[in-house]
């Protein structure tokens, strides 16, 4: 019997990672090329979730845009709204009350807390610790509750408005939030210990996806990714926006630069967020009503431009807002999210590591992925080649 078919397994296996993944935001395709187990190249394809938010902002009024930008990302809606609103306030030359500034910081730190818990939970799940995932998510839910007590909603809160915030807080709510935060602190310390001591977690994360401080800066990587490589950048301490100039906190950095360091930076930052939240709850100023009267807000925005930065959970988030002074809509709104830099520029980080390390590295940057695999089939009789999933190949040709 003559040979009719050849199975050609390429030396560099093309491994598309994504773009569909229901678990986390940012559908993105990582086209990985592997030589055996070793990754030799990664191409990053985007465009699966572009909703034209910047264009939409140009077509809506300054005030309606607050709700649009809050929907760029569910998990960090508050920082988006805060960054945009501060840009508008700068154009207006508006100063807000200290109480409003403190409340904004409290809300943003609760958001950082639950976001860091979420990605650490996802990392635990990705490396096979489903129970740990469930436990972290259970405790995260309590922080969501604290956020609900403060802002009125678990996720999309629309809490920040031009001139202040939408709701004030009373003594009862303060006590409830404090109680939740104190209980969560103990749990986070425990999870941090697990990530520090568990042998399997260490084996999967340590020395995986190492990035040097120099590469971080050259590739414009930001946030916990940069700080885990020893680059001390944090918009909270440099720009001192809202009340960050008055609240004591530490910028967490580590020197290891690997996936483990990135997760540990997040645990330590979660503990710092708790310190900030407790400080605010104990030192909340009462200088003025933090909720402005919407009817008295300026209807006309003067010509001007502002560029604001905020330290979102994933790193530096920036907004540029420009008003021409004629239209009720902004002339230009530019949003640069931290993942825009951290994910698109991250291709170099995977090279030299194995296929099994790919999800670990990607998760340590803070999105999530799914995998599928293919080989090429060459049909000699028909002189055609086509692609087939491994699953189909296993059934026989």
């Amino acid at each position: 019997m003559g040979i009719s078919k050849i199975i050609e397994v390429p030396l560099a296996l093309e491994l598309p990672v994504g773009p569909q993944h229901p678990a986390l935001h940012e559908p993105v395709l990582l086209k990985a090329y592997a030589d055996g187990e070793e990754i030799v190249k990664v191409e990053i394809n985007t465009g699966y979730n572009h909703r034209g938010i910047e264009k939409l902002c140009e077509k809506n009024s300054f005030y309606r845009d607050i709700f649009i930008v809050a929907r760029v990302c569910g998990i960090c809606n508050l920082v988006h709204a805060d960054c945009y609103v501060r840009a508008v306030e700068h154009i207006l030359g508006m100063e807000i009350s200290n109480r409003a500034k403190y409340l904004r910081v409290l809300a943003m730190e609760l958001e950082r807390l639950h976001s860091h818990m979420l990605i650490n939970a996802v990392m635990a799940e990705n490396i096979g610790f489903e129970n740990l995932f469930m436990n972290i998510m259970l405790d995260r839910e309590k922080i969501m509750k604290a956020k609900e007590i403060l802002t009125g909603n678990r996720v999309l809160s629309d809490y920040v408005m031009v001139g202040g915030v939408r709701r004030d807080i009373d003594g009862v709510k303060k006590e409830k939030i404090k109680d939740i935060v104190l209980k969560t602190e103990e749990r986070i310390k425990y999870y941090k210990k697990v990530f520090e001591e568990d042998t399997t977690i260490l084996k999967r994360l340590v020395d995986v996806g190492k990035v040097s401080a120099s590469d971080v800066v050259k590739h414009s990587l930001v946030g916990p990714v940069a700080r885990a490589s020893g680059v001390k950048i944090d918009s909270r301490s440099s720009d001192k926006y809202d009340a960050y100039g008055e609240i004591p906190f530490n910028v967490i950095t580590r020197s290891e630069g690997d996936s483990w360091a990135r997760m540990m930076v997040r645990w330590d930052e979660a503990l710092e967020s708790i310190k900030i939240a407790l400080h605010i709850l104990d030192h909340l100023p009462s200088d003025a009503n933090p909720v402005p009267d919407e009817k008295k807000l300026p209807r006309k925005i003067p010509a001007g431009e502002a560029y604001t930065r905020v330290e979102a959970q994933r790193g530096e988030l920036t907004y540029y807002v420009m008003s021409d002074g004629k239209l009720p809509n902004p002339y230009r709104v530019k949003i640069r999210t931290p993942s825009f830099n951290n994910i698109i520029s991250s291709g170099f980080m995977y090279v030299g590591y194995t296929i099994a390390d790919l999800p670990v590295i990607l998760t340590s940057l803070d999105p999530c992925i799914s995998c599928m695999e293919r080989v090429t089939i060459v049909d000699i009789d028909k002189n055609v080649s086509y692609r087939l999933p491994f699953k189909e190949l296993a059934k026989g040709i």
Partner: protein
Amino acid sequence: MSSRLDFLSSFTIETLVVKPGRKTYVVKPEDLRSVFSKMIEVLGDSSFYVSTIIGTDLKDEGRIRLDYYVVILPEEETIVLRTFIPRDNPSIDSLIDLIPGVLPGECETHDLLGVVFKGNPFLKRGFFVPSDIVEQGKYPLRKDSGV
């Protein structure tokens, strides 16, 4: 800080301020690469990063404005390098060989505004823009795109 950036004065046409207090240096488009080369020479390539590239279509002026927001380390001071290019021939030298971190910014600005960054091999339509808009040859952030 200011003494480290003194070299910018020889390239600067005009200085402005973007609120809140971001120093803005307007430079000629043909000088932009030289400015960044000099910046690497003076500050070192690990002492600053390009945070954002913002393209704005100034249709009435027939120009496209490009703003490079640069964060100087370790102070984390944000400065802006601003340049203008003609709207009917929007091209400028790419910085990708000098600073790999400009990749997302240049690709996005090309896809949404049609600016050609000469020397960047990764530019492509559809980086973000959906295929139907790409097929129509439209750049969504142009004021007359009709998108």
